[in-house]
């Protein structure tokens, strides 16, 4: 029974710390690099929630029926959203702070599409792979609207 006041004290200390650090359950949303086109194939809030459903449907239609429309294709996403570095080389969309990885890091969801799928458009074969990016430490000056622009 003597330990109860101690527990009560601990509770207040923790609550105070939470208030001080501002951890009120709201984290700042990640800011994504802009795509090339004028607008996405679906509204942003729909894409944020359902992009994997679109990709799953398109995947099965492509693999089993050979339907290769670009509306919801992974290739279409990458062609629009892959960023280029200052030498014009595309950076993999699953590299840190790139389009896919930014949100997936934020949400702690593992991204394994790119173990098989190309993470850069085909047009430049001198693309930079995700595994190379850390060591090269690119200045991400080209990202309009990104949180951290300059290194």
């Amino acid at each position, binding site marked *: 029974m003597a330990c109860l006041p101690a527990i009560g004290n601990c509770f207040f200390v923790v609550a105070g710390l939470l208030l001080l650090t501002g951890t009120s359950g709201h984290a700042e949303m990640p800011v994504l690099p802009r795509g090339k086109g004028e607008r996405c194939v679906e509204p942003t809030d729909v894409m944020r929630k359902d992009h994997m459903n679109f990709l799953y449907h398109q*995947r099965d*239609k492509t*693999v*089993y*029926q*050979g*339907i*290769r*429309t670009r509306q919801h294709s992974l*290739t279409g996403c*990458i062609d629009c959203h892959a960023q280029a570095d200052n030498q014009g080389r595309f950076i993999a969309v699953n590299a840190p702070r790139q389009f896919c990885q930014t949100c997936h890091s934020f949400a702690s969801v593992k991204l394994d599409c790119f*173990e*098989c*799928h*190309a993470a850069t*458009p*085909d047009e430049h*074969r001198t*693309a930079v*792979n995700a*595994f190379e990016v850390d060591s090269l430490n690119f200045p991400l000056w080209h990202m309009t609207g990104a949180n951290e622009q300059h290194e």
Partner: protein
Amino acid sequence: MNSMNKSHQHDRRDKGGPHCQSLPAHGARRRRLVAGAASAAGLYAAAKGFSLVELAMAKSADQAASSLTRWGLLIDAAKCASGCDACVSGCNSEHNLEKFDRPESDPQWIRKLDLVDRQTGHASSLPMLCQHCENPPCVDVCPTGASFKRADGIVLVDKHTCIGCRYCVIACPYKARSFVHETLHNQKSYSPRGKGTVESCTFCVHRIDQDPPAGQTGRLPACVEACHADGNGAMVFGDLNDQNSAIAVRLKTRPSRQVRADLGLNTGVRYQHV
């Protein structure tokens, strides 16, 4: 048996709720729909004045592969030169099949074979690849359903479902399948490949499925294109079901053979002058 089934259905209907009672109505509606679709297709064919088989040409990107088409490849071994590997390098660069200096296990979708008749000494050379069987043993043995045959006869691996067990590699009589042992980095957007999955010739579906270029009826697989550009023009690709296609005409007018025809697999790849 029929009467037993009927009474069983009747029992289910009696015991079930409103959902079960609506089953027969669904069945009748489906039958009407099927009949309607069939007659519509017939009317369309009659109105256009050609048979349904001729509808099956190269499809556009938004159309589903159809069983009216069966893609096939004819290889003339008399034209295929020993030492020429235009088709192999064409395939390797199209799909970016990286080599790791381990020929026993490096992925290979098409390989050249040099054959010698031991009795007569007659030598011939031919490419060996997935034969796109009508009754593919790789599909039979696949435990997950990842190996499958498309409606137009192309045998593929759904790598999302493949667990890399390699039963299909063993079942294939043509040694046409490879397993990816290494982590890959430079895949092409149209040819996803990854460690831990099985792969083989796809007849370049990514080309066949696309809208044909202006003035052409369709696109060719990379090996066929390379064989015509850099090799000896020993390959003919086309629709086996289209009686007027170059491949069907050649098969009709000249003798050809399937490799291991005794297995009854009805291969989509045929050889001449072997």
